[in-house]
């Protein structure tokens, strides 16, 4: 009985959806149970977005959807039909690195690099939210993005440099 119910997604059909990813319109067909994260990584070969837990605990899968940072592992791709999505691959413009990407390199704000795309996307989203002014507030609002290598101080240094640069402009 239960088995029959939960096996429903298996026989369900692919849904057609349209996503604007890094400025490019992509039309694709995916089953409703495909997360936005797996859609990016497995269906669109955009592997810059990382899977660290698949449960919204680590932040490695953070992408920007319609200007807001979200966890792509907790989002089904079909929920975002018509949305505009920016991934780490689309952060830089015209071959130029985004200031945060540069700052991350300068401050050695990563070691293994696996949490890095999520940290950068999350920081872009956080700066856009405009709530964090001080270093303490930035640390608090970046705390959904775990770093196991222990690059934390360098990550916050990089973000502060960019945030302060924006405020001073």
């Amino acid at each position, binding site marked *: 009985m239960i088995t029959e119910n939960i096996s429903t*997604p298996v026989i369900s059909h692919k849904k057609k959806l349209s996503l604007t990813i890094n400025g490019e319109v992509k039309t694709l067909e995916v089953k409703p149970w495909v997360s936005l994260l797996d859609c990016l990584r497995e269906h669109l070969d955009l592997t810059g977005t990382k899977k660290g837990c698949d449960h919204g605990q680590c932040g490695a899968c953070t992408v920007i959807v319609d200007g807001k940072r979200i966890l792509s592992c907790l989002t089904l791709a079909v929920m975002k039909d018509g949305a505009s999505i920016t991934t780490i691959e689309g952060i830089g413009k015209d071959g130029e690195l985004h200031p945060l990407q540069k700052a991350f390199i300068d401050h050695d704000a990563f*070691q293994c*690099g696996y949490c890095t795309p999520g940290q950068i996307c999350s920081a872009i989203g956080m700066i856009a939210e405009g709530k964090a002014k001080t270093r303490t507030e930035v640390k608090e609002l970046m705390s959904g993005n775990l770093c196991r290598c222990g690059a934390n101080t360098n990550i916050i240094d990089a973000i502060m440099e960019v945030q302060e640069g924006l405020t001073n402009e």
Partner: protein
Amino acid sequence: MSTMEKNYKPEQPAVGQSISRLEGYEKVTGAARYAGEFNVSDLLYGYVINSTITKGKIISINTEKAEAIPGVVKVFHHKNRPSLAWFSMQYADMDAPPGSPFQPLADHKIKYNGQPIALLVAESFELARYAATLVEITYEQEDFKTDLIANITEARAPKGGLATFLKPPPPKPVGNFEKAYENSPFQASGKFVHGTEHHNPIELFTTTTVYKGKGKVTIYDKTQGTVNCQLYVANVFGLHFKDVRVISPYVGGAFGSGLRPQYQLFFSVLAALELKRNVRVTLDRHQMFTFGHRPPTVQFTRFGASADGKVNALNHEAIAETSRFEDYTEVVVNWSHMLYPAKNTLFKYNLVPLDVFSPLDMRAPGGSTGLHAIESTMDDLAYQMKIDPLEFRLINYAEQDESVGRPYSSKELRQCYLQGAEQFGWNKRNPEPRSMRRGNKLVGYGMATGIWEAMQLPARASATITTEGKLHVNSAVTDIGTGTLTVMSQIAADEMGLHMDDVTFTYGDSKMAFAPIQGGSFTVSSVGSAIKAACNALKKKILKKAKSIGNSPFKRVKIDEVIFADRKMISIDNPAVFISYSDIIAANGHKVIKSVNFAMPKVFKLKKYSRAAHSAAFVEVEVDEELGIINVTRAVTAVAAGKIINPKTARSQILGGMIWSISKALREESITDHRFGKYMNMNIAEYHIPVHADIHDLQVIFVEEKDDIVNELGTKGVGEIGLAAMPPAIANAIFHATGKRVNQFPIHFDTLM
């Protein structure tokens, strides 16, 4: 390759410069591809099914419902496993402890909770994960034991084996400890309890196996040893060594978890060979708790000191968990006598085999466990004697390693103490516990000493002058985020007198020159020395070629009469006599000049010395007086680790170790429910590691330390030493703040209330 660092000064030696990671561009743009990101065509997805019981037998596996779903390809389990390697030894990898390595799907026996017992392969990841839930398994359960504390009386001596080469047993007793301790006017003792920890790199363990035809595979694996995995796969699946290629260009953290081949590798290769398809197996976060871990350990210390402040009796005993099939050991109790020259010692290290998976080296294995007990007991003694804890360390400073009676190849620990204390402002400390406050917070200062052995293993490197007159170097070594690519490129550039942008270093491929597993802080010393050896041999080949040119001005020149600088070989006597690398290549018929060489530790010279990196950590904590909440507000770690090749990446290694220290002392622990024999917090919401908001002011000092003995480069490694001193310094600072000495890690606020 990224654009060169703006601070890089090509006119100066690259070694010693703070150069940004060469792979930085790839890592910040998402271009870096990790093991699970090679999207080869025709890919199948495997999902592992784990045992839900702790010990017993599988009675039945029913795969009918799962295999009825279109898109499900096959379920592999012990009943349909193809014939594989017969002997236990064939499953032993380079890091296998004494015993019989775990063999996935070998039979119906369950040895631990979470044991992988089947692999479901399907056309998509979602389908594999879902269909795995439809596989019906029945078990017969048996009694089991997983509780170290409850079974502590079963402790026994560990079995010896090859591993004891890198992990020596405790030193033999010296003098008469019991008598000396009894007669000591000052005595301190403690029982220290550490829980289980899991490495939890953010990247999940993944293998993508590309089927290359009969008996041939190319494997993208998450590992700290490409050659180690190549060896394992060849042995287990009976393939030719050269038909197995393991590639790990980027590794999303490992911290020891990749030192041994993990089970996703076995399953991915098994399925690929059987199905003749490309197969990816990715573990989920829950499954990241179903292989190696830092073992829970109980330690007992008794230190005695004489009236003049000298420690004269040291007793340190440890009892650690291991599995029933392998005797995993760590060096826990060998450190105190390396640091403090007592005349009477007694050290013991024993194991309790339990129904768990074998433990596995995790950042600063053994050292970060043992030093907590040693340095907190030292702190306790200092308070009893009313001597400043730093002064107490200086009174007991070991000029040589008394545990083996040998001098240190170099030891600038005194400078670590002094420079660390100065930077931290240790002199502002009021010696009385509970004497310093900030509002409703108790403030405490604590310090501790760190030590980690400086090792070198045999390694090989290949060095080539390319047709463009540039240098290419390669090694099978991985870069797990430590900065290996950058550091090796720096070493190579200086050896051949080249700019960094004229050097390429490729790595992370078992086809390349042999490298040992990447761990133990020995990678720079091992692979760096191999690069030096290969470059030295290359220089001789260049000179030989130069001599062969008609009318060569180098005809009578010897290798010690030339230098290699500015992309040329130059005569020392007459700098006007030189030949550029491009001209050498032209003279060689536009063919490359290559040399592949081994570097071995100079065992006979080295055995006269002890070799170790040292550190001193100084920590300030705030403890909320009512709520007990602990905050590490600032910390300084001063490190003496020989030559620092790249201060920028080395500093990050130490910072990482310091954040791991906060995690170890205050956060992380896998908690077992011993009624079920399983971990209860198998996810990274409930397995706590520090978040950005937990991390405050951290400072790193590298103390100047010259070492001509330890290896050709004078390096000691920095991967572990950042996690050696700071956990006890945190515990000591909490004592200073609150007057309570808590010897159980992690320290939770409820113990302070």
